[in-house]
């Protein structure tokens, strides 16, 4: 039956370009291919009689919708079990009708015995109980986020998904380590959205958010197969689809760590203004602070050095380096009039040279 189910997938796979492409350039590609091959081979031996046709079917199915997380296999087990019964019971019921209509002459007299009803009720209950328990076990596992999971914040913003990594780096691309649990924290947006990665068989529905920066949902996943997969929102939306998809890259062993090092900060030997500019772009400042005068969640940096800054409590501060550094490390200390105290602290997350660079850069903006 598993093979029938996979054949369903494979039929679609035949008409579709493979969803999984090789990973990062370089040596990673070979490693990923090897991982995939192992995965496919394992699936083939488990799922189908060892014929060439079945193996090809399984391979095609794996390419179309690979089992790329620890949840994928167990969730697919639920799919296969229910599908098996859907096909089997439909055929039985339709078959009963057809056979009874074709049967010549009347059947036996008398009423249906109560025990038949009782046993069909017991059988049906057992069946749905198996469906329920099989699913609930995976569900329970999904609710308990392992300690030490890599935290990544997910938000749906104006231009699409953004992912914030532990070091504050913000990207439109999702990068994930292999064989390590990842904790997603979802920020509520102005419209409901889902975050679905079919290759992981997981989808999280995030309701409309209340506060800026408020976390609406947490979820976790552990990728087990390197590759590039599509993440998307499936909730109906008026936006163009391009704003509702993102690429999720599962790096092969060691690949994520290398990538993380690369993005962890700009080279500290840059001139201060340039260093500050890179920090401004890389550290997520752009989400709330513009340099063109537009007002977002936080005040704009345009003309920062040439004006006085009026605070909520009525006092006024000068645009000094100390004020900028304080606002980065302890954002709640001074709140500009007309804004809310919502900025997270960057204390300990930026090198002091970066803070100095940011001050230089912000003051340089006309």
């Amino acid at each position, binding site marked *: 039956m598993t093979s029938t189910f996979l054949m369903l997938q494979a039929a*679609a796979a035949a008409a579709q370009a493979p969803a999984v492409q090789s990973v990062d350039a370089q040596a990673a590609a070979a490693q990923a291919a090897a991982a995939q091959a192992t995965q496919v081979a394992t699936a083939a031996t488990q799922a189908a009689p060892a014929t060439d046709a079945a193996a090809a079917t399984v391979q095609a199915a794996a390419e179309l919708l690979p089992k790329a997380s620890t949840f994928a296999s167990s969730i697919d087990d639920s799919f296969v079990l229910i599908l098996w019964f859907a096909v089997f019971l439909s055929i039985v019921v339709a078959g009963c009708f057809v056979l009874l209509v074709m049967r010549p002459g009347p059947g036996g007299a008398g009423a249906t015995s109560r025990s038949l009803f009782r046993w069909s009720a017991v059988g049906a209950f057992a069946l749905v109980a198996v469906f329920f328990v099989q699913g609930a076990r995976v569900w329970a596992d999904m609710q308990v986020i392992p300690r030490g999971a890599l935290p990544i914040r997910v938000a749906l913003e104006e231009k699409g998904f953004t992912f914030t990594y532990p070091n504050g780096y913000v990207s439109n691309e999702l990068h994930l380590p292999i064989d390590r649990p990842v904790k997603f924290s979802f920020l509520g947006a102005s419209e409901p959205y889902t975050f*679905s990665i079919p290759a992981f068989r997981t989808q999280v529905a995030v309701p409309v958010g209340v506060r800026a920066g408020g976390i609406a949902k947490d979820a976790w996943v552990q990728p087990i197969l390197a590759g590039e997969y599509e993440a998307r929102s499936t909730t109906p939306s008026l936006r163009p689809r391009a704003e509702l998809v993102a690429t999720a890259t599962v790096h092969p062993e060691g690949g994520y760590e290398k990538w993380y090092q690369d993005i962890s900060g700009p080279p500290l030997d840059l001139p201060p203004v340039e260093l500050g500019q890179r920090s401004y772009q890389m550290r997520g400042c752009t989400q709330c602070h513009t340099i063109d005068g537009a007002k977002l969640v936080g005040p704009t940096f345009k003309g920062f050095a040439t004006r006085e800054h009026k605070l909520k409590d009525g006092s006024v501060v000068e645009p000094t380096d100390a004020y900028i550094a304080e606002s980065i490390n302890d954002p709640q200390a001074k709140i500009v009039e007309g804004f809310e105290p919502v900025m997270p602290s960057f204390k300990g997350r930026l090198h002091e040279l970066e803070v100095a660079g940011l001050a230089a850069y912000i003051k340089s903006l006309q």
Partner: protein
Amino acid sequence: MSTSHSIGTHPTASANPRGGRELAFFSQDHRSLAWAYAIVIGLALIVGIVLAVGLALQPLAGRDAATDATNYRQLYTMHGLVMVFLVALPALPGIVGNWLLPEKLGVAEMAWPRLNLLALQMLVIGGACFLVAFFATPLDTGWSFGLPFALESTSSVAWGLLGIVFVGASLATQGANIVATVVTSRGAGRCWSDLPFFGWALGAAGLVQALVTPVLLVALALLFAQRSGASDVFSAGGADVAFDQWFWFWAHPAFGSMVLASLAVIGEVVGEHGDRPKGASAAAVLSIAALTVFSFGGWGIHVLGRGDSQAFDVASSGLVLASGVPLVVLIVDWVMTLARGEARGTTALGYAATSTTAFVLGGLACAFCVVLPTGAYLADTSFPTGAMHFLVVGGVLGALFAGVHHLWPRWFGVPVREGWGKFACFLYFVGMVLAFVPLCVRGYLGQPRRTLDVVVADERWSWYAIAGAIVLFGGVTFALWNLLRTMLDSRAALARTEGE
């Protein structure tokens, strides 16, 4: 009260067995009203099906993304509104129920003939409001008015809501009338234990309709108040979930009432065409009672994983899965009924078999969406859309066709042409499977619902769905044409009799 309902004494009871069709839209006679419902719902069904074919073919149309997306939203909104509110909900109680219920209960009329007429008239007025909504600024919110679209949309939302208010009042009235008819028919020598299965199941459907429809009207009133600035009940975070809780608190039992009414008709057709007219076994009555109770508690499955309470998700999932148990008992009951009697291979029985099989397929397709991890994965993909269509198109409309083919010879005095009828039924079954399995498969592969964008590049499944839509359309067209021809046959027979 029940004594005044014995046959022939009620002032509005029609002497004409075909039921005075000439006054259909103003007569309070239940048979005339059944016929009037058949005309109204038949027209709505044709509109809904043409829109469905339009939806299926839309991917083949032009490639102007923005216009296409707007048109598509308008198309699926119209299709959903027409099919849910003007066809699936009122059809079985309105057509088959009106015709058969008093007869099965042994009374002359529905309990409230005047309300019965009012229900039809409000349905027509509601349909007219939908027409305005479609032609003024075409409604584009989807039939389920999901937030935030329903708040932000600049289309004729008010007309759509007004239409639903009328249709909702019609449904609640219809439901209350059915319950009153069942209840008042008991007594004076007619015990509850004599109540046939049809009375139990349709009575349960009526009860559900009467009880939950007001919830829908309250939800939509709140939505309207929010849109017009009179309220901000849907302004807070999570408002989308709050609205969906309201909406599905109505919609889940409302779909349950469709299923209950379908079960009434299938049981009736299976009994009559298996030469074992159905009383009601204790098991069947218990099953109907269980389905009724379960249907009230299942709305949470439509907000699965969106609220804050995991316990609520787990409970909803368990309760909806449990609804499968009474359904299985009923199916066993029907199969055993056929096994004990002598089944005639009629078109009506063919549709009853189609409907039953579709409930098995659709019920298990829903199980995918209800089991917790698969359900959370499939939410908002095209999978639930496909599963729902198995239930509504295969199950509910299949039962409608079974009922209509069962009643048609009695309306027109000549038999339905069985050969064509069975061919149409076969096309219907094949078309249904072919049209909706691809929706499920593509949903599993990650295709979002309600979008023209082909996210899963699966040309082949799209083509299956298009082929299925065409076959299904063919099946319905053949069936309607065959029924129409039977009417003409009856007219010819009548002319012959008069000529002699």
